[in-house]
């Protein structure tokens, strides 16, 4: 498949945005349980604002993927059958809940609404955080299933696509939370950094399993089933066009195999070991800049990861477009 930058930006930006929001809610939950010192409402509000900016930027990037962005509102209609439609519905819900969560903190709407058990005071921020968490997980599933649901692209048609999007998005979000805490010299940097490392390692396991699976892929379709001729030697001599077509532009990455392998190596280095080492170094040296560097490097790596995700996918229609003449 041809990697499109609009989609690469969309999936990586909203992944980081959702992850950052999950990090904020996780931080609040730990503070309620008194595992962490309580933070100011401003900390959560600004964190939510950054998450919202990422989500909005991702949404804007996605419009560049569309031929008719002005009709995008129509995409919410077929949510019963289309994962793309579901994503179009869930993304604004997540954006609204992130906004509401941040606004509730900013306005100090922390008066307990009711109590659960002896000690748990439930306020508006906690409720919005809970709903936002559910919506964020739903958005991860919707985004990933757009790709995982296409059964013809066998590289994508696996639950590992969902776990990759979930863990890698959450990892970059927690990494950003660590960077944010480091930037404002908040002691939570260690907490977020630890979670970021755990999620990055989980993402490493998931993505590695994905790569191993795809390396052993047996394709269902062959040129024999494509044209229905039973012979071991079939060579295409013409594809009906000499100057290419939509089919050659959309479904081929057009890169050399060495480029594909280089990008794969690049993201395996940038996403996993380097950010983990930087977070470890930041823990030892209490550096305020290393977590920021870790997030930026991991984000660049995730863009390479998404590029590679597209480039490694082989569509069965390519069997009809193997040579020009």
């Amino acid at each position, binding site marked *: *498949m041809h990697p499109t930058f609009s989609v690469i930006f969309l999936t990586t930006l909203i992944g980081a945005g959702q992850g950052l929001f999950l990090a904020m809610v996780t931080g609040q939950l730990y503070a309620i349980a008194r595992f962490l010192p309580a933070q100011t409402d401003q900390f959560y509000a600004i964190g939510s604002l950054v998450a919202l900016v990422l989500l909005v930027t991702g949404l804007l990037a996605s419009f560049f993927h569309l031929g008719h962005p002005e009709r995008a509102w129509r995409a919410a209609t077929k949510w019963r059958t289309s994962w*793309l439609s579901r994503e179009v519905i869930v993304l604004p819900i997540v954006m609204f809940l992130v906004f509401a969560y941040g606004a509730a903190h900013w306005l100090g709407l922390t008066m307990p609404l009711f109590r659960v058990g002896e000690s748990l005071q439930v306020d508006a921020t906690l409720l919005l955080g809970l709903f936002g968490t559910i919506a964020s997980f739903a958005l991860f599933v919707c985004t990933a299933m757009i790709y995982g649901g296409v059964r*013809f692209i066998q590289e994508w048609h696996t639950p590992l696509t969902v776990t990759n999007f979930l863990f890698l998005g959450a990892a970059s979000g927690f990494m950003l939370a660590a960077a944010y805490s480091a930037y404002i010299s908040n002691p939570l940097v260690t907490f977020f950094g630890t979670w970021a490392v755990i999620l990055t390692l989980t993402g490493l396991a998931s993505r590695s399993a994905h790569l191993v699976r795809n390396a052993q892929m047996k394709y269902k379709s062959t040129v024999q*089933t494509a044209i229905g001729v039973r012979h071991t030697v*079939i060579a295409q001599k013409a*594809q009906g066009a000499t100057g290419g077509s939509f089919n050659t532009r959309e479904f081929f990455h057009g890169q050399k195999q060495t480029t594909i392998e280089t990008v794969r190596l690049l993201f395996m280095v940038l996403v996993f070991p380097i950010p983990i080492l930087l977070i470890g170094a930041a823990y030892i040296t209490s550096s305020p800049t290393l977590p920021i560097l870790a997030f930026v490097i991991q984000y660049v790596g995730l863009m390479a990861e998404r590029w590679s995700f597209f480039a490694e996918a082989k569509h*069965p229609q390519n069997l009809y477009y193997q040579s020009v003449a």
Partner: protein
Amino acid sequence: MTQLALVIDLNVCVGCHACVTSCKEWNTSGWAGPLADQNPYDGSPTGTFFNRVQTFEVGKFPRTETVHFPKSCLHCEEPPCVPVCPTGASYKRPDNGIVLVDYDKCIGCKYCSWACPYGARELDELQQVMKKCTLCIDRITDAKLSDRDRKPSCVLACPASARLFGDVHDPDSEVSIAIRERGGYQLMPEWSTKPSNHYLPRRKTVMHIGQDELTRVDNPLRKEDLTTYTGEETLDDVAW
């Protein structure tokens, strides 16, 4: 239920591209707007087509044969491109089973093209909407045309009559009989998309001639000789 479809005889197709040009001419001149081309007269021409003829070489020289393979939307009975469409622009007509795109609802997200294993859908780079074969829906539903003309333009253009058009759900239709009696098959059956279009396979015409057929026992032109005798008993030796 009616399911209109094409049946394409690969044994007859000569790869002349008449169906391609006829399809392009009809569908670029219709009410739905042009099928846009880029650089049509330059070095690297490209554009939107509903139908393409591809050519494959089967076997190794000298034992090769050339298969010309016309490819367009197969109007699947289980079209995987329809449920993925987020806007409902892609739909399957309930009355005749043709899979169509509503160009006014399409947002150009290209997701349906990912969900088609046959590469039958092409994005129009000018209009930025997804396009595909309509089986000339504006012709075949036009009651003003005579029965002879109410067929897709590719079918009418084919000089070898390699393309048949009809209802594949009607067991007595020309297309159903052709599929049944001439080994019609579907493309990529492994995806269970149930394509409505079928292809008729290549068939070699081989004559089997045995030795006995070359020398007929009762050949009336057989040369008759006088029998030469070498001393054996003949009728002449019979004593009456």
